């Protein structure tokens, strides 16, 4: 099977570490902020997005271009999918044009895993349904590490719609591999009890204060109304009980950082004052997304490349 990147769950810690280390090389530094490389010159990646996305698609596209690769972006609305073509046929058609990798986002959990069984082109999962979003977890880890912290023993609170969050799953897998202390928090209808066994070091709570107490990192998740098949909670009460406000931060460690995969809903899961506060690293996450995705693309497209 081609070596793409389908998820964090199946990765070894040392593979993750290699990507995180390599991403550092690609972070902009000092005066010569942005550098272009020709590591992937002559390579072509296809960005195939079956679900709306601005930041991830753009981030991958920029990452590919900074490495010298050609990037083509396709959105489902514009493709033959709208004409009723099956997913396998669409992918086979694209594969026949010999891209070196396909970066794919899809609303169905497991869609890239299903396709990878039929395809020789490596697939990079840019988010599959409510399953995994591996590059998000990698960029989150890079962002935490940039703050000087180690991941081992770190107390990380992940708060929101855990049940439907691919970001939460990927982060749980990654942080668990490093021995972090992970507290998952949300209303019980969005916090299946099985999550406590999904990986080591995970605890669950429905109490926001308890989740945040002594936290080193707070990750807020978007409340995904589009994934709600019915009201799993009264929307009008969400912010009152699970929205992050300034007063919450006093419970956390003084140097706590607040993360959010975006797009943020101000006043729904996070107060504006928190999103714009000194503690927020939301824009750093976006910036790190490019460096991390460069490292991932390099790993998938030329796995034996040395740092230059």
């Amino acid at each position, binding site marked *: 099977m081609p070596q793409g990147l389908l998820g964090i*769950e199946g990765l070894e810690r040392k593979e993750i570490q290699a990507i995180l280390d390599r991403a550092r090389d690609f972070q902009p530094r000092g005066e010569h902020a942005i550098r272009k490389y020709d590591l992937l010159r002559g390579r072509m990646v296809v960005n195939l997005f079956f679900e709306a996305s601005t930041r991830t698609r753009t981030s991958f596209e920029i990452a590919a271009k900074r490495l010298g690769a050609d990037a083509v972006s396709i959105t489902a609305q514009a493709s033959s999918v709208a004409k009723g073509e*099956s*997913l*396998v046929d669409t992918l086979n058609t694209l594969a026949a044009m010999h891209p070196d990798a396909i970066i794919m986002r*899809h609303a*169905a*959990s*497991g*869609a890239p*895993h*299903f396709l990878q069984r039929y395809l020789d082109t490596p697939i990079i999962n840019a988010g*599959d*349904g*409510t*399953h*995994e979003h591996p590059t998000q977890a990698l960029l989150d880890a890079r962002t935490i590490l940039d703050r000087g912290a180690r991941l081992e023993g770190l107390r990380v609170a992940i708060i929101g719609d855990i*049940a439907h969050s*691919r970001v939460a*799953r990927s982060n749980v897998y990654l942080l668990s591999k490093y021995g972090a202390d992970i507290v998952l928090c949300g209303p019980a209808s969005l916090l*299946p009890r*099985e*999550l406590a*066994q*999904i990986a080591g070091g995970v605890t669950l709570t429905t109490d926001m204060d308890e989740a945040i107490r002594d936290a080193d990192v707070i990750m807020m998740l978007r409340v995904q109304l589009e994934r709600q*098949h*019915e009201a799993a909670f009264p929307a009008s009460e969400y912010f009152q009980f699970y929205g992050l406000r300034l007063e919450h931060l006093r419970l956390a460690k003084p140097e706590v950082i607040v993360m959010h995969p975006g797009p943020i809903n101000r006043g729904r899961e996070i107060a504006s004052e928190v999103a714009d506060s000194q503690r927020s690293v939301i824009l750093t996450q976006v910036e790190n997304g490019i460096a991390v995705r460069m490292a991932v693309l390099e790993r998938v497209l030329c796995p034996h490349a040395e740092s230059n």
Partner: protein
Amino acid sequence: MPALLIKNGRVVDPASGLDGVADVWIEDGAVRGVAQNIAVPEASAVFDATGLVVAPGFIDMHVHLREPGFEHAETIETGSRAAAAGGFTTICPMPNTAPVNDSATVTSYIVGKAREHAIVNVLPIGAITKGSQGEQLAEIGSMREAGAVAISDDGRPVMNARVMRRAMEFARSFGMPVVNHCEDLDLSAGGDMHEGMESVRLGLRGIPGCSEDVMVARDILLAEVTGARYHVAHISSRHAVEMVAFAKARGLTVTAEATPHHLALADSEMPPYDSNYKMKPPLRSTCDVSAVLEGVVNGAIDAIATDHAPHPGSEKMQEFENCPFGIIGLETALGVALEKLFHSGKIGLPRLVELFTTGPARILGIKRGTLAPGAPGDVTIFSLDREWTYDVNKSMSKSRNSPFHGKSFRGGPVATVVAGHIAWQS
């Protein structure tokens, strides 16, 4: 018609309490006798069953033959061939065809098609409600007259308890069992696999065990009120099995069937997002699987039925959540049952044969499933130890959706005799 003599097999006929080496003599489509060293009349065909088990013809009371309406997935003919290759001599197709089998016209069409093209007996199951819409009762009495042996809205459970009550009462007038696919559609809505650790891990929406349990509970209460013969299709959850045992203990005529896949596979055994493992009810937890096995052992469960549900490759080759539910199962049923029940030492051979013969025959109230003199000349001959590997690409079915492709079995069907004719032979 020439006679058929099946010689020297281990004849297991639970209905007559028989288990020993004997010959079975069939003539004019019916069993004439079972005894040692039956003299062979001159023109008889002889089948040497030395070392094999000779049982009454197996009955699968839960299949989908897709005809009329979905002949690209299966036909009565191809489904019957797959049945024969699985050792089944009688199959009961569910009514979710297009049109739905909710009238004597459709029932007669199926019976007629089967008479022309099927190589095994086909006894249709009619719908409970018109169009299986769950609202108005179907023409239950006239379907009975046209040959339907039970009623069910399989796949589209009757959600309205009052309609279910009336159906049970009306079916009782004709002595017909009411078969229900138990699934509270509000609780299961949107689900693609069993709700539990695996669904959480894979990010797939869950079908909770309680969606089955609440409807089994409701139906058992209604069965008590109405005195109906009530049957739980493809039982899959621990609580449901316990409730059926409870109903039996209360003396109700409540029965249940289990599929081979619910005896054999748990949700955790599904390769990630493999649609050949997607069906309803879903593969449940290992705790549920052991409860279904226990139910078979202790008698809470009366029959094994396959829920053979063909879907063409094009429909199963999609994103997991877009794939239809269901797997084929006729050809692998005996192999799976032998492995999980017999070779594992859970039950003896007579009980295993019961699950495929007298079990379903009693539920349906049909005079089949025995080798008593005068019974239909339907016989299933199988091996207990022949090693074989299932290759779904060689299936008699039109569809290929099986989780057992490539699996090796110990023992399985060797020959299938329908009305004295060898319908299939390995």
